[in-house]
């Protein structure tokens, strides 16, 4: 009997730990949308978009002038750019990782990393 209760407690403890870990991973996985901002291939800033409660605005300086980046809960965009073509601004908001926001003149790339299965069906890439 004593031996049995030892095993019961051990198994219960392991199961409990595993359960807690599984739930924690699920929660973390479900909510986390990380925006990584790269300049010329180097990651200069990472923002957890899922944890934002208000709009965060900042600028990044590049060879073709500044890009103003606006991040809020779950999404991010380039709201203003000093480059002539404005392609990055026209790209608008991004809320999933299927395609990055790119400013070619400044070699600025914003990639979103979704750690969870979101509401949209699985997408490997985007053409357009």
């Amino acid at each position, binding site marked *: 009997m004593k031996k049995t209760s030892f095993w019961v407690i051990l*198994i219960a403890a392991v199961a409990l730990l*595993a359960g807690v870990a599984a739930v924690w991973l699920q929660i973390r996985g479900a909510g986390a949308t990380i925006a990584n901002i790269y300049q010329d*291939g180097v990651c200069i800033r990472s923002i957890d978009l899922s944890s934002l409660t208000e709009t965060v605005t900042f600028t990044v300086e590049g060879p073709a002038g500044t890009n103003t980046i606006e991040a809020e809960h779950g999404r991010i965009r380039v709201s203003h750019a000093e480059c002539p073509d404005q392609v990055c601004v026209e790209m608008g908001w991004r809320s999933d990782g299927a*395609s990055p926001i790119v400013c070619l003149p400044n070699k600025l790339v914003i990639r979103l990393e979704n750690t969870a299965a979101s509401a949209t069906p699985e997408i*490997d*890439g985007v053409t*357009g």
Partner: protein
Amino acid sequence: MKHSKPARVLAVLLACVLLCACEKQEASVEGVTSSVFAMDTIMDLTPYGAAAEEANTAAEARILELESLFSVTQEGSDVYRANHGDGVPVTVSEDTAALLETALRVCAQTDGALDISIYPVLRTWGFTTGSYQVPDEAEIQSLLERVNYRDIAFDADARTVSLPDGMEIDLGSVAKGYTGDQVMQVFRDTGVTSGMINLGGNVQVLGTKPDGSAWRVAVQDPRGDGYVGVIEAVDQAVITSGGYQRYFEQDGEIYWHILDPATGAPAHSGVISATAVGDSGTMCDALSTALFVMGADRAEDYWRTYGGFDYLLVTEDGKIILTEGLADRFEPLGTWESSSVTVVKK
């Protein structure tokens, strides 16, 4: 040895937890993404498997090599030399010759809906520099006099090209497609059997995904954020042309970068997004532009005559038109689920 009931229940529970954890481990073959700035865009390369790193290094070198041949602005490139050849035949590389041959074939087959000599008109609109302007009609007409792919003297065997005085070519509508084909070849040569590349919106996939299923390629919604739907692809290129990709607005009018070589103005065929799906990236790149310019009726005629690929068009009145090969592997998303879908059959 006899266990108490709770112990057995817990053991089963534990086994379940462990099994669930294992389930998440499937498709353990990792992809390695590398990004390259080339051809005025960003290129993402994602080969899978053990040779992925090696494949990326080789592919990057190949991309930069091709860029140095196809660039319009880089002095010494094949295209630059052809544009500044003063009527004297210029010898070009095998790559440029192969690309020119395919491009000129599509120019002819589409009756000029694709014309690689439109470059001077594109430049005067500012689409090559970002200094946008609406040129006056007289200027467009005078530039159009030098736009005609039929006047390009190209000898495929001798690999020479010569242009009439004042004509300039640009392979921008086909160069990324050709580059995609070449990257696929590099992947295969290094032993990669599964991978996806995205060359500034041109998607091309090698094989299936590592788990054996088809790649799911979404088509950008031409009207805003989100997607029209998803196309399943294996060993194919999926390439879209849309007016939304580069445009400017003046006096309430929108001007986009895909010009109709017949008018020298942005093409208004009723199609706002054209996707070509096929084995050849070069063909799909050329065709996506041509289909956008041709519009739904001419696209259908072209496809019936030449075939060899599938297409998906989105019209300005919100309809989806696709060829029969895509009928079972296209899935509309979001608001597009309620759109009218027309399937074009042979």
